[in-house]
């Protein structure tokens, strides 16, 4: 064993990139090139330096964007600037798929090989890139790597291209062919893919609510948003006051759309009434559940609605700072949101908000760096704070001790989008939509073997079969529908009458999750699909708790043996055992849901035709 601090110094480009985020260093002690007379006798550290820990991930992004990796010299420099031990910062850098620490990756195409893109061109795309660039992850120049779901499922196959430099180039491309990816890697112009599609909008449906403005409003224009009724909700909320806004939310009985279906009003009230400020509002836009792309659609096509809803949340719970955590694979959504935030701030709708007495609220965008687990709210806190994105033990719950240990409201993009109508028309009117226990409308992400994939909006109460019919029906003969994403479960063709409500799903033993509805026809290789799901969870497990870290590996191995012709009885019983341990003992939802899809596939007899 030989532990030593590494002496590598940053390059000029690395310094510039980091300084652009963190500001110029004040002294040599702070990483500057020259010593100042004062620094021998005065320095600032301790609490003020530790408070800058939150700038770690943005600084690492800056290095990745500028030079294509987190070199030792670059890492050393960031650590000196932020007073972080290099080993700790290395632990953070290696946590994320999109940060390279071993060698420069100046131009990388991340190619989705996940369940929706599989069998829909992903293999062909990968082969084309392999021909041109060599095997995945190799070579000093441009390279490609397989990737989990990129959230472009409706337009498979998909790739996310990152080219380092000044400025960096980041593009999500779908559907895309190898030629276009290769062009993008060389910064040649490629047709930027269209934003996520909403077939109902394109068909001129009249009764849409969350999708009301999609396709009609100009996402780059505050003026256009206002013309379509934008910011009426914030003005009205300011007039109502925090207490009444929360009361409306409570009477709306809105449930969170991120997967856990927690009553939103209860959350808002808990944060508003929490004793110790400052309070924070976080919009969870780390949409990473395989098969999910609804939040991307809202962000790309109606971004001001997200910003307005967050501002209402800030007003209602008494928060002055909001964070919008967007997954790193969504560059277009990030860019569009950044534009919306800038315009809102310039118009006095963020920052010092000059409405009804005035209040302060601002939003900072945080970019994820490729980690499914960061969609878990407490992992997301750690990620923003500059730590590895590992979930925390609950309690304490975020409403009491969340981001920076303070009361924090975390809502998913879709959940927040519902707030606008609730404020404008009142909670009880909203509650008249949908069913008694599932109020309002829900966005469903249709992809897979379906005729017209895209995001669909329905009032709660619609059945699985009706949703599939609305999307033009299944291509081929239906074998099973994956509901809820990789963390959800397969449903057989005999149960298309399941109502897609929270209570209906619960009664059927499934979960709506993030609203994924992915039908597979009888030509599907389910062994391959479930192995990809098992691989996904093994790869995305943060490794913090044993049941998930070990269980996800053992599950994948058992599934490998089962689908390879091993003893069905032994392997299925082992998978059930592992599933129970992961469900009972994992810290967070990742481990708790990592077996659902596989167990349901086994139960439906989708693997090797063996019913359990």
């Amino acid at each position, binding site marked *: *064993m*030989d*532990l*030593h601090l590494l002496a590598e110094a940053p390059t000029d480009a690395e310094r510039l990139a980091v300084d652009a985020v963190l500001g110029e260093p004040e002294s*040599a*002690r702070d990483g500057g090139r020259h010593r100042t007379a*004062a620094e*021998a*006798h*005065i*320095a*600032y*550290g*301790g609490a*003020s330096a530790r408070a800058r820990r939150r700038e770690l991930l943005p600084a690492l992004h800056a290095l990745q964007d500028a030079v294509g990796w987190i070199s030792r010299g670059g890492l050393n420099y960031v650590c000196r600037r932020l007073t972080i031990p290099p080993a700790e910062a290395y632990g953070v850098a290696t946590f994320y798929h999109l940060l390279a620490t071993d060698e420069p990756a100046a131009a990388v195409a991340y190619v989705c090989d996940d369940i929706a893109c599989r069998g829909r061109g992903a293999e062909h795309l990968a082969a084309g890139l392999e021909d041109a660039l060599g095997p995945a992850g190799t070579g000093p120049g441009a390279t490609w790597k397989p990737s989990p779901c990129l959230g472009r499922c409706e337009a498979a196959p998909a790739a996310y291209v990152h080219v380092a430099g000044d400025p960096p180039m980041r593009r999500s491309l779908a559907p895309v062919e190898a030629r276009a990816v290769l062009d993008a890697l060389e910064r040649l112009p490629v047709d930027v893919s269209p934003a996520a599609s909403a077939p109902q909008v394109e068909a001129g449906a009249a009764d849409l609510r969350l999708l009301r403005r999609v396709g009609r409003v100009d996402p780059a224009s505050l003026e256009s948003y206002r013309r379509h009724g934008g910011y009426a909700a914030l003005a009205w909320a300011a007039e109502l006051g925090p207490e009444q806004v929360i009361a409306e939310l409570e009477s709306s009985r809105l449930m969170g759309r991120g997967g856990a279906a927690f009553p939103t009003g209860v959350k808002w009230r808990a944060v508003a009434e929490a004793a110790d400020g400052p309070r924070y509002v976080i919009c969870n836009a780390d949409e990473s559940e395989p098969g999910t792309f609804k939040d991307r659609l809202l962000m790309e096509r109606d971004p001001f609605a997200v910003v307005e809803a967050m501002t209402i949340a800030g007003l209602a719970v008494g928060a002055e700072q909001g964070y919008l955590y967007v997954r790193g694979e969504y560059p277009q959504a990030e860019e569009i949101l950044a534009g919306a935030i800038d315009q809102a701030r310039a118009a006095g709708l963020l920052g010092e908000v000059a409405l009804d007495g005035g209040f302060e609220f601002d939003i900072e965008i945080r970019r994820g760096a490729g980690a499914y687990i960061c969609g878990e709210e407490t992992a997301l806190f750690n990620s923003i704070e500059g730590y590895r994105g590992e979930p925390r033990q609950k309690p304490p719950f975020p409403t009491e001790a969340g981001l920076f240990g303070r009361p924090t409201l975390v809502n998913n993009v879709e959940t927040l989008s519902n707030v606008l109508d609730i404020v404008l028309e009142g909670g009880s009117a909203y509650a008249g939509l949908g069913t008694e226990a599932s109020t309002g409308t829900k966005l469903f992400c249709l992809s897979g073997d379906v005729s017209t994939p895209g995001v669909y909006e329905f009032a709660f109460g619609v059945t699985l079969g009706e949703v599939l019919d609305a999307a033009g029906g299944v291509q081929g003969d239906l074998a099973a529908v994956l509901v809820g994403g990789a963390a959800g479960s397969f449903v057989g063709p005999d149960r298309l009458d399941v109502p897609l409500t929270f209570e209906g799903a619960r009664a059927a033993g499934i979960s709506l999750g993030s609203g994924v509805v992915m039908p597979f026809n009888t030509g599907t290789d389910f062994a391959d699909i479930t192995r990809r799901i098992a691989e996904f969870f093994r790869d995305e497990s943060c490794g913090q708790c044993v049941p998930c870290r070990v269980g996800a590996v053992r599950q994948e191995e058992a599934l490998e043996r089962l689908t390879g012709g091993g003893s069905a009885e032994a392997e299925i019983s082992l998978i059930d055992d592992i599933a129970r341990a992961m469900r009972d003992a994992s810290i967070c939802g990742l481990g708790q849901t990592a077996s659902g899809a596989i167990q349901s596939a086994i139960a439906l007899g989708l693997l090797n035709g063996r019913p359990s």
Partner: protein
Amino acid sequence: MWLGIDVGSDIALANAVGREILAQGLEDRDFIDRATSGFDAYAEWVDRFTLDYAETITGVPADAIRQFAFEYATAPTAQLCWTLGITEHHNATDNVLALINLALLTGHVGRWGSGLVPIRGQNNVQGGGDMGALPNKLPGFQDVEDDDVRGKFEASWGAGIPTPAGWHLSLMFEAMERGDLRALYVIGENPAQAEADVTRARRLLGELDLLVVQDIFLTRTARMADIVFPAAAAWAETEGTVTNSERRVQRVRRALIPPGEARDDIAILSDLAARMGHNWGSPTAEELWDELRSLSPIHAGMSYRRLEEHRGLQWPCLDEQDPGSPFLHGRLWADDPADRGRPAPFSPVEYVPPVDELTDEFPIRLTTGRRLDSYNTGVQSGGYTSPKRHRESLDLDPDDADRLGVADGDRVRVVSRRGAVEAPVRVVGGLRPGLAFMTFHFPDQVDVNTLTIDAWDPKSGTAEFKATAIRVEKVG
């Protein structure tokens, strides 16, 4: 906020901070009036310690001192913690008094979260004091020159206790020099390598009529001894207690049988007593602890059972219902003057620079200390390897290295007014021009304490290890 003061200028800084707190009107007037004495004299005394004067002495920019004064005075709670950088000076006690003045000025004492905290360098330094291993104190910090106290111990022990107070370490070496001290029994110390001006220390140890050493290792001092008692390691091979920096007494349990002929300190001392004609029997650690509890009021409530139940208790703990004391001096905040007791005195202290002056001949200030993975003279840490340990070096600021024409790894001769050693140079970023650093972990390689000065504080007996004047000469 880090204030990099020049070595030995602590009092100038503290007095200037006190003056600045007064200038900004941030002192706690109520606390001062109710619980302290000597404030007016203090205020008058520190008046000449202006920010500019302090900047000249300490090197710290005046603005930074002003900011620190504000932050300290206005913090809801604040602690002044220190280690040997404050106490290994010829004016160690004055350094501490200067800090106490600040706590009294702001009321940052006697309250939860505030206070004055000497951080101990070992798990049981505090426990040594608790047990009376001080020349003027009996166990429980009871004054050996107090007749009532002494009477209590004498009655319990059935033996007389000599007065007046004994010698501390520095006085012992002076007594050896005079020939008044002829025999020394050393338990768990390595003065032949740890003392300042160690050449003199070794000469004096060598001239004793009798040197007895009791230690877990055959140290350099033990190798000089007439008699060596191999001892058991207190943290793993014996039963007992330790007291940590926050006065928390904790149980220590035996996990290992000591190797070879090594024995528990209690057994060695009891057998020695028996040979001298006093039968102490074979007391257990708990029996001795209960005897201490019967004699030391601050430990009285700490039975082994309670120590285990509470996972340690902080003294004073006066009886078996007492939950212990998370902080001291709370009396100063009592409403009733009778409960408040004697006011805490301000102690105006003068700034006096280190004894070993910087001159053209000896222009660089050497300060010594420890590194993370080594301990003192290496007796306890030299026996295991560490991936981070490197051999002894003279750590120099890059500017000094340039000026001296030496590079990383070059061997140099380090010369003080008392001696010289050779060591390789390490150019490091954490120092400043004119300040050099060495450890004392590897005395067998580089005998750093041949450089240090044995000028010591008359009130505490501690030598000025932290401030040596040196020059650096290239070798070869």
